[in-house]
């Protein structure tokens, strides 16, 4: 198994997902946690749109098939997933801004919050 053939979309997607999971578990700032969730979602998109891909397929457009069609189903599902990722990030960031204005917190732990949380 040549090492360069291992770098497919699925393996990179799995790696991105676990890098995002590590960031989600360990970061002490709230904004970095939200960014880590975005990275996890990017890994999932990459994994799904690489499923069932072989290099000798043509795009599924038009009716003249020179070769087999590439799979359109995971791409169509990931269109929905990307828009949902936008929504989740926007909602998370708005909640963070609300907490910051009301309580003055920007870190998860109590000892590191901003000194003098007037804005």
């Amino acid at each position, binding site marked *: 198994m040549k090492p360069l053939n291992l770098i497919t979309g699925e393996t990179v997607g799995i790696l991105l997902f676990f890098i995002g999971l590590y960031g989600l*578990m360990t970061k002490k700032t709230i904004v970095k946690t939200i960014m880590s969730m975005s990275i996890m979602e990017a890994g999932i998109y990459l994994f799904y749109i690489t499923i069932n891909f072989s290099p000798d397929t043509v795009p599924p*457009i038009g009716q003249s098939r020179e070769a087999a069609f590439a799979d359109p189903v995971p791409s169509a599902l990931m269109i929905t997933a990307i828009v949902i990722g936008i929504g989740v990030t926007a909602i998370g960031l708005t909640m963070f801004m609300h907490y910051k204005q009301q309580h003055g917190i920007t870190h998860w732990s109590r000892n590191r919050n901003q000194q003098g949380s007037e804005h």
Partner: protein
Amino acid sequence: MARQSNRYIHILRIVLAVVGAAVMLFVYLNHSEKLNTPLMDFFTDDFLAQTGADNAVAAIYLNYRVFDTLFEALMLMVSVMEVINVSWANKHADRYQFEEDDMYYKNNSELVARMVGIVYPFVILLGLYIIANGHVSPGGGFQGGAILATALISRYLVYPNFDLDLHIIEKMEKILFLFIVLTPVLYVFMQIQPDNTVISHQVYMVFMNTLIGLKVFSGLSIIFYRFVFYEGADNTFIDR
């Protein structure tokens, strides 16, 4: 003591992430099996005659699985409502005064302003092209709507004054969502189609792509402008 247990917990998290990735990669590389693809065979069998779209992805998200698209449009509208209503500045800020209309760049770079001024008609044209041709070539409503939103975001780079009335865009988004729900329910679920569906399929595809494109454009623009003008660092609040 707390610091040492924090160190152990930190090492545990690293180990968890690394072991999880290793297990997933091992299982994927060694034990993945290839199954049949009944969905792909059904969708790519005869999609031009059944749905009127040359693009199989557009046939899937506008005709075969249009139920997912309805809920995705709903999800975008709910996130816009949340951005407006959950923000602290909604109840606790001064009422935003619309700034008067003087064309000075307000410390923005003049180079960026002039170049964006040259480029933005082409961005709008590209966005409308991708929306209108979504059923024939790669593209569609969501992609073209995001490109149109880029044109409105680049307006902020040129002219960072707040003179847009966001209520009009909000109302437009809600009316567009009503039509996005109404059209597939009448056309696809209840099958109110004319007998010769060659032209009506194309009209349905272009109409749905346009509605979805405008809705995504409105949603993303509202989210961007609410973040920039209401959550900025130099707001003055009445009380905490």
